[in-house]
């Protein structure tokens, strides 16, 4: 799922009320306004009244400013933060079933699993199911390297992200 050409991807983190229909409102807004969602991940926060949605949006044809302002108009949206890739920590999970019919391919795939700190989740007589978590870039690499064996089925979660922490004590 490496990003298509000519994309301008931004990550926004949206804090919403944890109510039914909120995801539909966000998805509806994006389709109605012609905004393109590259990926989307939703989960409740530590406070169960709220959920956090991480949206990667392609702003090559709209302004990020409009996306943020329109999202902000949704009554159930509490807070929106745009994350700068340079100063945020991003993680994504990938699960993939890859063809491993020969002993050589099986061996090589397991090597890749070790190099990438991935995990074998399930073993079939001619396939392996593996998963890896990491930065989306790293997942792109892993996916590309597995490609030559034949990807049978694959699922990525879409990324989640948090701002990088301050390294220097500003009061020191």
């Amino acid at each position, binding site marked *: 799922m490496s990003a298509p050409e000519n994309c301008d991807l931004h990550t926004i983190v949206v804090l919403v009320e944890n109510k039914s229909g909120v995801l539909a409102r966000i998805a509806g*807004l994006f389709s*109605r306004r012609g905004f393109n969602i590259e990926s989307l991940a939703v989960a409740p926060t530590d406070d169960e009244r709220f959920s956090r949605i991480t949206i990667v949006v392609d702003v090559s044809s709209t302004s990020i400013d409009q996306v943020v302002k329109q999202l*902000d108009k949704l*009554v159930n949206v509490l807070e929106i933060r745009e994350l700068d890739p340079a100063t945020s920590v991003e993680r994504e999970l990938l699960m993939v079933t890859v063809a491993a019919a020969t002993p050589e391919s099986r061996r090589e795939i397991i090597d890749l699993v070790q190099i990438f700190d991935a995990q074998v989740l399930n073993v079939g007589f001619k396939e392996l199911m593996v998963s890896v978590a990491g930065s989306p870039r790293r997942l792109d690499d892993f996916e590309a390297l597995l490609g030559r064996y034949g990807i049978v089925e694959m699922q990525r979660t879409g990324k989640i992200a948090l701002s990088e922490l301050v390294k220097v004590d500003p009061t020191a």
Partner: protein
Amino acid sequence: MQLNGAQAVLKALEHEGVDTVFGMPGGAILPVYDPLIESSIRHILVRHEQGAGHMASGYAHATGRPGVAVVTSGPAATNMVTPLLDAYMDSIPMVCITGQVALPAIGTDAFQEADTTGITMSATKHNYLVTDVNDIPQIIHDAFHLATTGRPGPVLVDIPKDLVLPSAELEWYTPTGHDLPGYNPVMDGDPAAIAQAARMICEAERPVIYSGGGILRSRAAEVLLELAEMTGIPVVTTLMNRGGFPDDHELCLGMPGMHGNYTAVMAMQEADLLIALGSRFDDRVTGDRGSFAPDAKVIHVDIDPAELGKVRHAHVPIAGDAKSIIAGLNGAIRSLGGAEAQPDRTAWRTTLSGWQEKYPLTYEEHQPGERLKPQAVVEQLRDNTPDDTIVVAGVGQHQMWASQYWKFNHPYTWINSGGLGTMGYAVPAAIGAQVGQPDRMVWAVDGDGCFQMTCQELTTAALEKIPVKIAILNNSYLGMVRQWQELFYDERYSETHLDTLPDFKMMAESMGCVGFRVDSPEEVEATIQKANEVDDRPVVVDFRTLEDEKVYPMVPAGASNSELLVDPSQREG
């Protein structure tokens, strides 16, 4: 106090100060209609739910209070979609209560089930599906708050039938606050931006105030007048703000846009500063965006931050309530010297008055034997009705002539469907306006096409003794579409001729109204007088107008505003 859900709905509406609701009962909403009999709220029984929605809108326009519609589930809710979107586009405060099938039946394709909140998600400012009877007071309170604050708009509350049955009881409570953690509309503008805007205004040589519907929504007409008079800056009033600045004021340039007058359109094109107040650079105003007002810097004031920079870059964007920001702006300009601080704009004023003289709105004289001139009918209506008459329009040529030829000198005297352009708006919206302002005269200027979309509501008005007056500018055509076919499709009139059916006079009489038909110019004034005298039921006047009259000026779709076509008599060469 123990109430059942239905009683709680009515108590909540009464608590919000609702005096009138427009609606029609049916299965899912039936329990709410039972305690209505004891309620102080007046219910107006419509003939079609679309009528209820537009009536609520007309009521809101005319009173500034939210309009309320109550309808049942399924087909009734889908009949509300058009009025909801119409109100959403024009920022009209409205609350719509819809019945829904019982909670356990939701999702089973039950009889008259519709995914009302799903369907209306993009047609409302917000909507609710109530899932607990105890939430009814709070949600209705929040719905009114959302509808009337910030950028106003329609809010829908969908209530499953099992929550309003007598068995669904709750302990009534009066909500004290709101449960809206994500809703904080900005009200006050940034003082630094206001100060910067004031400086820009005092430096501009060719400024224009581009005033839109936000002026009326925020009740800012007075502060706008003060701003214009202090600075001497001319004002254009968009289709949504006709009346928000008096037409007879020397600084008023009138309506800009596709059918705006030459001076209003060209003033914006040539301006070096556009002061956009509660307006949103709609495509019907800008024409081709790339060539719109090429030399203008922009100050943009809007309560909706998403409007700032959406269409046109704003050099000074100011989010907040127009009234408070304009008041702030007036103060800031005054402290810079007010009128004294304005540069010499004699050249600009001369240019504008030169255009006004050369290109006034005009139309050719009536010729003997011809059908009526629609513009002349509007002028005679204008001249034979009180100054504060409320004018309500449908959508089409008649709407443009009404906006062009009426003189709007008071705010809230012009009601129309601007953003959505909903044919059929006029009759129900006029009824709603008359209900909200029973002591004022309300005239709808409608088209023969539009009238046939919602005229059944005249039965409603007749039974309720609502004396609205409807002037049909009957050109026997879907005239606006015909105009495009004549000008841009080689006079190939595909499906725009409405012929001469039905007989509107008879139709009106059959619905309990007074009906007139006017064919000759001599009868126009006398018939208007007769219509004005009717105060106990609606009146319909079928004015037989010219079939091929066109609305000018006109900016062809997609063209630059500088390519405005004026009336043929004003063209050179």
